[in-house]
Every structure is written in structure tokens, then in C-alpha cells.
């Protein structure tokens, strides 16, 4: 059974998970600070927090999801494509739908 986690199997302290966990929290706090207390322009803030979000996502994929460890590349690629599909549908789809498919500013 693959009951033991990757960390316990090697018999070491789960460094990867701890590092991933703590850096995720730090990145989130930094984003929060930038949004609430920094004096940047709105555009800069948005760019910054988006970048932090992508960094965190990549970090989590590597630290928790064992992205680099799989032996079967095809399945890994399939999973990534599927996730990208869902993410794009959720983000762009919501944007399109909530804009009602028309540009409200021009109509109201």
C-alpha cells in the first residue's frame, strides 16, 4: 500500500511540506500587506498579487503535488491540461458571463 507518505517512506523529516507550507503562508501575507497597506497604484498592486499567486501555485505544485517526481509523463501532462482547461473556463467564463456578454458601460 502506498500508505506511507513520500516523506515518511524516505524516513526523513518532511522538509518539503514544511517549507511549502510556511512559504505559502508568507506569500499570502505579503499579498495581503500589498493590497491593504502599500502605496502602489492599483495597477501595480494587481500585477504584484497576481505574480505572487502564480509563484505560490508553482510552489505548491512542486512541494505538495510531487510534480517533478512522476515516472509517467503522459498522465502528468494530461492532468495539467485538464486543470488548465477548468481554470480557464472558470476565470474567463465567469468574466464573460458576468459581463452579460455585452459591455454594460456602453448600454447603460
Amino acid at each position, binding site marked *: *500500500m502506498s500508505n506511507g507518505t513520500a516523506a*515518511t517512506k524516505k524516513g526523513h523529516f518532511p522538509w518539503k511540506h514544511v517549507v511549502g507550507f510556511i512559504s505559502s503562508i508568507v506569500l499570502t501575507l505579503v499579498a495581503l500587506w500589498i493590497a491593504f497597506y502599500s502605496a502602489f497604484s492599483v495597477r501595480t498592486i494587481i500585477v504584484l498579487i497576481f505574480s505572487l499567486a502564480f509563484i505560490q501555485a508553482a510552489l505548491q505544485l512542486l512541494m505538495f503535488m510531487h510534480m517533478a517526481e512522476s515516472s509517467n509523463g503522459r498522465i502528468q501532462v494530461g492532468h495539467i491540461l485538464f486543470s488548465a482547461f477548468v481554470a480557464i473556463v472558470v476565470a474567463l*467564463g465567469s468574466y464573460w458571463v*458576468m459581463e*452579460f*456578454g455585452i459591455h454594460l458601460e456602453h448600454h447603460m
Partner: protein
Amino acid sequence: MDPAWDEFIITGEPFILAGQIAILVTTIGIIFILTYFKKWKWLWNEWITTPDHRKIGIMYIIASLLMMIRAGVDAMMMRTQLAAPNMPFLGEAQHYNEIFTTHGTIMIIFVATPFLIGLMNVAVPLQIGARDVAFPFVNNLSFWTFFWGAMLFNISFVIGGAPDAGWSAYMPLASNDLSMGPGQNFYLLGLQISGIGTLATGINLVTTIIKMRAKGMTLMRMPMFTWTTLITSLIIIGSFPILTVALAMQTFDRLWDAAFFTLQDGGMPMMWVNLFWLWGHPEVYIVILPAFGIFSEIITTFARKRLFGYTSMVFAIAAISGLSFLVWVHHFFTMGAGPMVNSFFSISTMAIAVPTGVKIFNWLATLHRGRIRFNVPMVWALGFIPNFTIGGVTGVMLAMAAADYQYHNTYFLVSHFHYVLIAGTIFGCFAGTIYWWPKMFGVKLNERLGHWVFWLFMIGFNVTFFPQYFLGLDGMPRRIYTYFPEDGWFSLNFLSTVGAYMMGFAFVLLVYNMYYSYRYEKRETSGDAWGGRTLEWATSSAIPPHYNFAQIPEVKDQDAFWQMKQEGVDPNGVEEYQDVHMPNHSGNPFVMCVFMFIGGFGLVFHWWTIGIIGALGIFACMIQRSFSRDDGHIVSAEEVRKEEAEIREGQANENG
């Protein structure tokens, strides 16, 4: 918020009082029985802490059946209230609103989903020739999150008040302004907790199916139920995070005055609707695809034929899984989005009917010229095909955006989704339970009673819901608690209520049959109760030994077990036994989920201290688990040999 004690425990409602008394009596009864028969230890060691997929599956199924009783009673009360115009039965709208909300939420989240997950747990590891799932500890955790999430949701009606904003919990109706009191908080936290478990199950099953198939079982040799489980799990992984986030946002709105979905401060109420259905539509496919898989298994077994068009079936479910993420707006065409948006979603929705149709024809072709045996699981499968088709066809009617302005929120819609959910999902759950019952309990359900249950339920179902199409066309809106004689809806409503009582009676009979068969039916003596085709029937005993297979079978074809039987191969003819690696028991998940319940309960009432205690407890459990070593244990070859020998001896004695 500090509710006085008499607001905390709901008082002064006869039905709720009855509920409270029933809960009290049942709890005392259970505690008494367990103590009297000294079963506490057994319960803890054998069930609560078990990593065994079959036992976890059984617990899922029992819990879902109990939830079905709860939500079924809700249904009976609603149908009684609507049997005639101006009925005084439930008194007022508020009570009715609470009942339809809990009915819908429980049926989808705490019945349909976990019931199917239970069947997956029982069957999938066996079908792929594995000894357990990939993460047995997480599997146990998933069950307990579901269980305690469901408990948190269910106590709402006796403590604090039930949610009343519908299972879709639209904002701003579900906001503090319009849904006062803690009811809606129960919904948010109960679903949040159980959602974690569903997501974990999805990950668990994908890993299991991808990584743990027996030698020789390529993807295109997997049984159809395993295929649908794989695809369903992928949909779960894609869609449940959306629910998690949306629930968290609404929780912030209600508990900490955020403004994600509010009318003021720049919130967007329709964004909730959007996110809810971004999860909600994939969710309806999560509960139908496994049912499709179950019917495929049953139809091939009882028609004694290979599945017609296996490859096209696989492509059909894969197509459905992709499309299921592209149709969500059909639930709110009436929001009034522009013609581009509504047309796009109209067309994508109609497109989803195509792969569904492919599947229907494949089943029919499988039946064609089959040597059909009409056992009870098969009868459910045969009943499914025409009834589900009615639901699918009316779905396509709803998919036309312009026409949907007429149908939306009428009884026509109510009838559509009951035709797909009952004739699809619920028929599937029943059929699967009856089919795999010998795998779970070593005995078949009585066939004569079984046929009665089917006919009563199926006829009752049509009597209940067919008239509702016409009520809908006649303008009767959904979610109303009464109507006037002048509306002219009396006779069809009355008929519908009669059908509902038939279904209720059939369900009672089904549960009775479980008891009856356990007492009186003949025990199964082999692992192959129905002349099956897939590996779950290849185990050495009726209830598989805890390691499932002494030796993992080697797969050479689709319908692996059938092929072995054709060639006279005995999957249990093991020459040399090997050590078996099995997972350990753990009480950690149970404790962790009790803390989730405690923390959730605290948040519901804004009692932050209790909330923090819950959070700390959860953390403590996670840390305990993260830093402890648990590599499972080894069952030695000698023990396996002994157990197999005992099984064989028992069978020899039975067969005289």
C-alpha cells in the same frame, strides 16, 4: 450574537418536537444497545478506525440510506402539504421553505454523492484487482468528514433553525439581511466540511485507478464502472474547489461582513449564482456518470454479453466530462445575459445530449440478442433506460434559452431533474446496492420482495412526477407552499402525492428486505454470485478476505473474469503464497473530524472560542499524523495460506 436558550433549541413546533424526541430516543437506544452488548470496542476497532475500502463503502451506504430517510420524510411532508389547495398541514411558508431546502441539499450532497462513493469504494479496488485504495487513511478521513458535515447540517432543525434559502442558496436571499439566524450558516459549514472529503475521495480514486491496476489491465480493459469512477473523480477534482471557494466567500459575507455577493458595497449577487452552477452542473454529472457505469456492469452481466461499443462508451463519458464544464449558464438563462452568452450555452447543453444518446443506444445494442436474465438488478437497469430518457428529452427542451423563460422555476423543471436524478442516480444506487450486496454481506437480497420494490417504486415515481410536467406547463411555480382552488392544480397535485406515498412505501419495503434477507436468505458459497464478468467476482469467498486477493490476478482481456472462466483458469489457484502489505487502522481521522464538527458548530453561532478550539484540534491531529511513521503492516504468506484454506474448507462443507 448570543441567542437565548429558547431560541437556541427550537421549541413550540409539533413536528420539530417529534423530531427532537425521535433523535433523543434513537440516541439513547443506540447507546444502550452498544453498551448492553459490549459493542463499543468492536465498533471502534472494526469500523470507526478501519482503512478497509469495503467497510468504508458499507458505512457510506448505510449513512446515505439514513440520510435518504431523513430527506424522504421531508419529501412526504411537502407532498402532503401540496396534496390539496389551502392545506393547513405545515402551517406557514417559513416551515415549507426550510423543508424544501433541507430536502434538496441532503438528497444531493448527503445521499446521491456519498451513496455512489460508497459503491465505488466497495467495487472499484476489487474490479481493478487491488488490495485497497491508494490512500486508505485519507479514505477513512473522507468518510468522517462526510459524516460529521452531514451531522452538522442535520442538527440545524432542532438547534438554531434550518436553512431556508433553497439548496442553491442564492444571494441576497441567503444573506444576513434576508436569512436571519444561524440556519444558513449550518448549510455553509456542513457543506464545506463534507466537501473536503469528497475532494479527497476524488484524488484518492484517481490515484488508485491510475496506479494500482492489476497486471495486464490496460486502460481500455477497465470495467465500465471503473471508467466512470475515474472520469467522475476527475470532475470532482475540477469542480469541488469552486464550491469550496464560493462557500468560503458566502461564509465571509455572513460571518464577517464581507461584500462578495451583497447588493451594496460593490458585491455581485449573481456571481454566487455563477459560481454555484459552475460547480453545480458538473455535480449533476458526478452523480449520474457512476450510475451509468453501474448499469453498464449490470446489463452486460445479465444479458451475458460483452458491452456493445466499449470504446464509444469511453469516449462518450470523456466527452460528457469536458462538456459538463461548459453548460452551467443553462441554470440561469433568465438572468438576462446577452444573446451570445445564452446561445452559446443553449448549444453546448444540447450537445451534451449527443454522447448521452450514444450511451443509450449502446445499452440497447448490448441487450439486443442477449440471453437476458431478469434478476432484480437487471430489472432496475431496464427500468432506467426509458425513464431516464424522458428526463433527458425534457432536459433538451429546457436547453432552449427562449423556451426556458417559460419553463424556468416551474414544476416542469422540478419534474425534469427528478426524472434524471431518480431514474438515473437513485435507480443506479439501488441497482448497484442489490448487485453488490452479496459482495458486502455474503447474501443476496430476496428476489420476490425485490421485484415488488421495483414495481412499486417505478410506478410510484411516474405517478408522482409525470403529472408535474403538466402542472409546470400549466404555470405552477416551484417552491410555493400552497395554492388556491381557482388555480386548477388540485387533481394533478393530488395524484402526485399518491405516487409519493407509493415510493415511500416501496422504500420502506426495500429496507425491510435488507433485514429480511440478512435473517432468512441462503448464504452465498462462492465469490461469483451472479455469473459475473469482472474481477470483483473472482474473489475466493463471497465476502472477499480483507486482503481481497491472495494473489493479484493477471488480466488478459476486457471482462477479465469471464475470460478466465471460459479458459478454465482458477484465479484463486495459488501455488505459492506471498506476503501481503496492508494499511494500519487509525483513530486520527475520526478525532480530527469531530474537531471539524466542533469548530463548525462554533462558527455557526459566532462563538469564536469554540471555533478556535475546533481549529486547534484539527491542527493537532494533522501534525500528529504528519510526524508519525505509518508504513502499514505485513500479513505473512503463512497467514494468507491459512485463511484461504479455511475459506475453501467452509465452502466444501456448505456444498456437502
